[in-house]
């Protein structure tokens, strides 16, 4: 079973919401990740048939379904908001797509409803109405309704985004195994890198209505091919520093380190450092040292986010383990191991090197 988006474009009010999407989704789960306004929801709505594309085709199992009404398609959709039928009980909510599907045998409806409800952990809430449920339970009901009927294409549009983080983690864990062996195509969109990395499914990074990159989420996290991909997959956000290539070395704010694969003297680059790779203790020989001033320390319990101000008024965030207390205004030195620095081309945003090892023949 496959879903193909072939040259899909969507223009709304003169703006390109999707700008030439060519993707092929196999059976099983695929994660879509992108920042706000990346086109995730639009892509899902086109795939479902809720939004007709301005150009391009949607092909399911080799059949062009672009002109087919959403009522006639074999799809299910879970929204970010908790969408259920308020006047129906949880049981009737889950049963409704089954009752309407002609191919589904009537005598199996009851068994299937209870099975899916059990799977989603709402087996004891079947008699209630959605308004009598918590947010997490409402979303479980919505997911159960989407899972009840076997469909070709199951779309989940940031289903966990409106839940508080405890419920989110719990539901994420529940969902992880659920789609693995799915015979249909499952698209799961999220803005949260942790979700994409947890599901460990094939991942598509979207940005500004285009496909930034597709591949394995962990690979992309380790070796982000572009700055946009690195930024999308980094939470907390990536620290960015300016640099210049000079004689096989990269100079940055008064320090320099060797970058063997990077060519082109005088070329401007952007250095990306994840906050957890920034330390305030010496990391080892060859570490980069940036003198800075402490601005703010955010303590979350297990980690402390230290906001540092570099001499060029640039901010650098260090994620330090444990609860640490600092005094704002005091000087500190940020240490960065050059092995954990991503070097991106300033012009194109392509990865030139993770400075320890050359990445590709881009230079």
């Amino acid at each position, binding site marked *: 079973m496959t879903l193909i988006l072939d040259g899909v474009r969507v223009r709304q009010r003169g703006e390109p919401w999707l700008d030439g999407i060519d993707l092929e989704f196999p059976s099983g789960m695929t994660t879509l990740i992108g920042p706000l306004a990346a086109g995730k929801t639009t892509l899902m709505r086109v795939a479902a048939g809720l939004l007709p594309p301005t150009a391009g085709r949607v092909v399911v199992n080799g059949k062009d379904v672009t002109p087919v009404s*959403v*009522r006639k398609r074999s799809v299910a959709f879970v*929204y970010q908001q908790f969408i259920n039928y*308020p006047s129906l009980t949880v049981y009737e909510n889950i049963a409704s797509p089954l009752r309407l599907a002609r191919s589904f045998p009537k005598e199996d409806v009851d068994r299937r409803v209870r099975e899916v409800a059990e799977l989603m952990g709402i087996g004891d809430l079947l008699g209630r109405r959605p308004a009598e449920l918590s947010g997490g339970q409402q979303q479980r009901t919505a997911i159960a*309704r989407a899972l009840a009927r076997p469909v070709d294409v199951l779309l989940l549009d940031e289903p966990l985004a409106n839940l508080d983080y405890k419920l989110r983690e719990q539901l994420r864990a529940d969902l992880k195994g659920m789609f693995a062996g799915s015979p249909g195509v499952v698209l799961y969109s999220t803005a949260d890198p942790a979700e994409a990395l947890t599901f460990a499914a094939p991942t598509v990074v979207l940005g500004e209505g285009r496909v930034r990159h597709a591949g394995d989420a962990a690979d992309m996290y380790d070796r982000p091919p572009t700055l946009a991909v690195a930024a999308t997959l980094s939470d907390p956000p990536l620290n960015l520093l300016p640099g210049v290539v000079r004689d096989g070395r990269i100079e940055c704010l008064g320090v320099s380190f060797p970058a063997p694969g990077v060519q082109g003297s005088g070329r401007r680059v952007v250095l990306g450092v994840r906050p957890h790779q920034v330390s305030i203790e010496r990391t080892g020989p060859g570490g980069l040292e940036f003198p800075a001033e402490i601005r703010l320390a955010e303590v979350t319990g297990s980690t402390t986010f230290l906001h540092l101000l570099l001499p060029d008024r640039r901010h650098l965030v260090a994620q330090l383990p444990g609860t640490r207390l600092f005094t704002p205004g005091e000087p500190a030195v940020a240490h960065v191991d050059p092995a954990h620095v991503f070097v991106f081309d300033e012009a194109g945003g392509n990865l030139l090197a993770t400075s320890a090892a050359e990445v590709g023949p881009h230079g």
Partner: protein
Amino acid sequence: MARAAGPPAAATGRRPPAVAATARRQLPWARTVFWLYAATLMLPLLWMFGMSIRPNEDILGGFSLIPQRVTFDNYQTFFTDSVWYSSYLNSIVYTSMNAVMSLVVALPAAYAFSRFRFAGDKHLFFWLLTNRMAPPAVFLLPFFQIYQSVGLFDTHLGVAVAHMLFNVPLAVWILEGFMSGIPREIDETAAIDGYSLPRFFIRIFLPMIRSAIGVTAFFCFMFSWVELLIARTITSVNAKPIAATMTRTVSAAGVDWGLLAAAGVLTIIPGAVVIWFVRNYIAKGFALGRV
């Protein structure tokens, strides 16, 4: 009726009870002021009720707050004289017909305005409302002549249709407000589940806006019930409204005050009954800002 209409009760109705209790303790005169206000509002109604249970001589005779002789003759006359009770029924029949017909027309229209974008939708919506701005008298002559020629003159259907002129725009307006408060994603989910539009509308959508339907039906009923000019002009005998009958009580013996008062009391009752059923929904309608 007094409680439902009393502004202090309505104003504090949405507050938590504890706050209301505190406010009452702080203002020892609040209760007195409320009852004074309510009594002032109620006085004409009570006076009319008092008139309805007195013989005409007592009404025209000396002034007294308490009726000297209580009689139900006026009510008896009302319910035995076919001119009176049949016009009462006429009003109820065409008003109910109007409420149902207005809703049947307004529900799909409001759904279209709330969910679809089409050329001139905003102008059309505004034009609908402007129908309420013209005085009904403007439409008297056209209605009279058209109804004479198509055989709608002096029929319940005729009055109900004429009243749709101002009730349908109102109904569309109220319903559109409620419908737009319902997320579009529910419509989409239903489409994905395989509901056809009519089936979705009846099974899923209508139950979600039942309070809106209650409020709308009430307003249609009310406006149709109190409308006199059109209803009187396009009827003669068979569909004559109660209000028209009340304006024609002058006979050779003079005005029958008691009977008129009894008819007035009875004319208030249907409205009071309807408002009793939708009183909670009305509050919700106000909260949603459309009513």
